[in-house]
């Protein structure tokens, strides 16, 4: 009876992709599909057919009388207090939000807000940031509501400027969610190993075995080849980075989830961590290589040193951008495929819309599967590159240019290192001694 089960999974997948998008149509005007708006961060949790959950707004404001800290339970509360008003994104035109609209939970519905705003007699229609699909709106009310919707515009205080915006946004919620999930799952595993369940006896249970596979893979394939004998110092960071990025990526794939790593700030901070650890691990050799590269004539050095220093910064920058762009692009592509249905419907009528529904949703499911793969790969690549950079910085024996038997680990070496027995705590395997394998047999020592 396998076939019905797979069919059920496929239908559930299609529905989970198409349902939120379908409900969007009910809430918006026809031309109003905002793919970028749904990918970027926002001060609310988006359970679209069922409503939105507004998140607390916290501001550090520099007012007329010094710094103060404002906290509101939601955006509506902030606007209703009268001390903050919503400012549309594009033009700096201030539009004070009508107080009766503050009570509306689902502030996105232009039908509700449109009536109120046309009564206010507002400024001409403005396009909000990501609204590339927005056809020139015949209804000013619809565009107006979108432009002054407090959930998609910035809040400005009536007096003073916002110094630091500490508002809890979707990505912050999912950051803490990933952290909570990881602590919940991994800390009990850690205490299990400390009790000896995975060390003196076999690991028990599904989660422990899965985690052990992944952790051992990272240790043996990522940390040891790149970090050398000193790998235990940096292995905790690599494992943390891997599991955190993986969890954040995967949480973005569940229905109603948001990807914390699709925020450039999050990936930038992760890259900064790698950067700081890399510099702290730098040996004297490493710094000498940057500030006085060996083997180049003296007149080339003034050109090479800035390039080396620049290279120091481009590597973490690339780490951040790679993760950010991969995570954002996947969601954007899916939303664009679903949005294609509505665009075709707007251009060619309802029948054509239904006709594009099946191929579009099928493509979305395929891209979803690809995104799942990319989630794992990007976490892995971030970890590998971090290990590589830390290894390059902390390498102590690599740059002795007269070494005769300096070579990259061949598959033979790797097979040797993998067949060596488990090390007890605190023992580092010496790099050059081979006690097993053919090299030991033929070498005379």
């Amino acid at each position, binding site marked *: 009876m396998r076939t019905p089960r797979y069919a059920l999974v496929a239908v559930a997948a299609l529905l989970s992709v198409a349902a939120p998008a379908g409900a969007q149509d009910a809430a918006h005007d026809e031309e109003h599909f905002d793919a970028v708006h749904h990918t970027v961060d926002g001060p609310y949790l988006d359970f679209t057919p069922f409503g939105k959950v507004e998140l607390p707004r916290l501001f550090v404001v520099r007012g007329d009388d010094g710094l103060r800290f404002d906290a509101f339970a939601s955006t509506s509360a902030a606007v209703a207090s009268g001390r903050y008003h919503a400012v549309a994104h594009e033009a700096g035109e201030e539009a004070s939000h009508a107080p009766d609209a503050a009570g509306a939970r689902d502030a996105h519905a232009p039908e509700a807000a449109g009536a109120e705003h046309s009564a206010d007699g507002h400024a001409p229609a403005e396009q909000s940031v990501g609204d590339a699909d927005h056809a020139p709106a015949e209804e000013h009310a619809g565009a107006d509501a979108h432009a002054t919707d407090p959930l998609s515009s910035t809040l400005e205080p009536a007096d003073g400027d916002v110094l630091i915006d500490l508002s809890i946004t979707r990505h912050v919620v999912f950051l803490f969610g990933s952290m909570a999930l990881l602590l919940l799952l991994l800390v009990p595993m850690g205490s299990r190993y400390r009790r000896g369940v995975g060390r003196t006896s076999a690991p028990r249970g599904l989660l422990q075995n899965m985690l052990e596979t992944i952790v051992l893979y990272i240790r043996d394939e990522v940390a040891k080849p790149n970090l050398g004998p000193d790998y235990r110092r940096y292995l905790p960071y690599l494992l943390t980075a891997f599991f955190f990025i993986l969890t954040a990526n995967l949480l973005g794939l569940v229905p109603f989830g948001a990807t914390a790593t699709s925020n450039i700030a999050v990936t930038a901070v992760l890259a900064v961590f790698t950067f700081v650890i890399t510099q702290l691990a730098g040996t004297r050799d490493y710094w000498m290589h940057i500030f006085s590269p060996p083997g180049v004539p003296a007149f080339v050095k003034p050109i090479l040193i800035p390039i080396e220093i620049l290279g120091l910064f481009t590597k973490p920058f690339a780490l951040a951008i*790679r993760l950010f*762009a*991969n995570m954002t692009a996947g969601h954007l592509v899916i939303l664009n495929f679903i949005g294609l249905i509505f665009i075709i419907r707007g251009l060619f009528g309802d029948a054509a819309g239904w006709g594009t529904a099946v191929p579009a949703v099928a493509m979305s499911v395929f891209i979803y599967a690809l995104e799942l793969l990319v989630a794992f790969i*990007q976490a892995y*690549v971030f970890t*590998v590159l971090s290990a590589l950079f830390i290894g390059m910085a902390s390498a102590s024996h690599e740059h002795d240019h007269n070494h005769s038997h300096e070579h990259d680990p061949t598959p033979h070496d790797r097979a040797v290192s993998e067949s060596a027995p488990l090390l007890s705590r605190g023992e580092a395997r010496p790099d050059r001694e081979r006690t097993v394998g053919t090299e030991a047999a033929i070498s005379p020592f």
Partner: protein
Amino acid sequence: MGPESLGYLGAGLGAGLVALGAGLGIGRLAASALEGAARQPEASGDLRTTMIIAAALIEGVALFGLVICILLALA
């Protein structure tokens, strides 16, 4: 053609070129990885790992360009 529409045109052309470049680069990478794995099946594990890392790096460069295109289209 005003500046905005030229911006959109640039973004569209750029995104296409980015996809082209990434496809070519990763295609060559995958071809040589497959060839190496065909010649020496026992090295296929190492080859796969290296291929994935290199593919992620190439894709990183492609996505830099894509981010510029998105910035062009939105601003």
